């Protein structure tokens, strides 16, 4: 009985040790996941925010990004932009918060691949946004490239992933009046 008790105690101690180790020295995946969850929380907004809260939240959103972020997204609000700096991100976040009556953003699925040098990573994630007053939620699959800068994981590139191709090609072709067969370029997924 004594031996069993000792084994159980030892196992519990080992489990606690492992937990403590991962708590004190989390893996890059864990850090990135936590950071992306924080980003989703920062992007979310409530209906009656004060101007000061809105500005502070918009600035905190910009803090998740590198000084210049490369873009390849199909959001009409961003037009045909290829990059944005932090000030522009703050302005965009501010505009989104002031326009929406309230928005809840979450990333229900996050897949992270860290490069062997552990200095860069790619996060493939689903963005789900519930905008108050709208019946359906907006869903997109996106890819974020991250780089470790001064100990912090910052987003350097955002790209919309084509979950279902062809309809997007068709839409894009129609909008641009170009040929419908587009195989090489990255085009975003149309809304739900």
């Amino acid at each position: 009985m004594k031996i069993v008790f000792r084994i159980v105690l030892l196992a519990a101690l080992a489990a606690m040790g492992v937990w403590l180790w991962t708590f004190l020295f989390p893996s890059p995946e864990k850090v990135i996941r936590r950071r992306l969850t924080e980003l989703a929380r920062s992007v979310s907004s409530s209906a009656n925010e004060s101007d000061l809260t809105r500005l502070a939240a918009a600035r905190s959103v910009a803090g998740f990004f590198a000084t210049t972020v490369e873009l390849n997204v199909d959001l009409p609000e961003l037009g045909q932009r290829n990059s944005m700096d932090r000030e522009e991100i703050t302005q965009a976040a501010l505009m989104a918060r002031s326009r929406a009556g309230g928005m809840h953003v979450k990333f229900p699925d996050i897949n992270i691949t860290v490069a062997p040098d552990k200095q860069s990573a790619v996060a493939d994630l689903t963005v789900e946004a519930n905008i108050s007053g709208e019946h359906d939620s907006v869903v997109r699959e996106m890819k974020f490239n991250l780089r470790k800068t001064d100990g912090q994981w910052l987003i350097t590139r955002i790209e919309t992933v084509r979950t279902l191709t062809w309809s997007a090609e068709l839409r894009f072709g129609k909008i641009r009046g170009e040929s419908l067969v587009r195989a090489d370029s990255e085009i975003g997924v149309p809304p739900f």
Partner: protein
Amino acid sequence: MLARNQAEQSNVRPRQSWLPRWLQIVLIGRNPKVTLVRAAVLIVTCFVVFRFILLPARIEGISMLPTYKDRSVNFVNRLAYRWHEPQRGDVVGIRLAGPHVMYMKRIIGLPGETVAFVEGRVLINGEVLDEPYEKTPCDWNCPPVRLGPDEYFVVGDNRTMPSDNHVFGKAGRDRIVGKAIL
């Protein structure tokens, strides 16, 4: 002697429960240990089934009307395509970055086929596809697209909406999570 009898009596007296006996039987059974084991088995079974085999899904949106109504509940069977490949007409869940949010669409084109829409009719390799599930006429026109060896063409059943507002197209085999069972 008297003192000993009193002690014995107090020992054999059944412990009083704060619940009436019948309620105790209803709530935790005649044998609490067996009930506990049963509850544990049930919890583990539910966890395994609904996490890894039958994914519960709430349908949002109108793209699968009239087959599936907005806000209806369904299950996606992840084992459906373990022993055979998806078939034409199957309603499948298509993952985005993961299985928590999926598109629910019907397979109309199989790998290697050419799919087109002409005046609302689906053409597979140039021949009109019979679609008994399609109740409302539509006027979609889309040029032919050839599917790769691992690609399926999926579309919703509600084609009364403009094609621009409808998400449809080619989906890789790896994106198909499973088959809707209801």
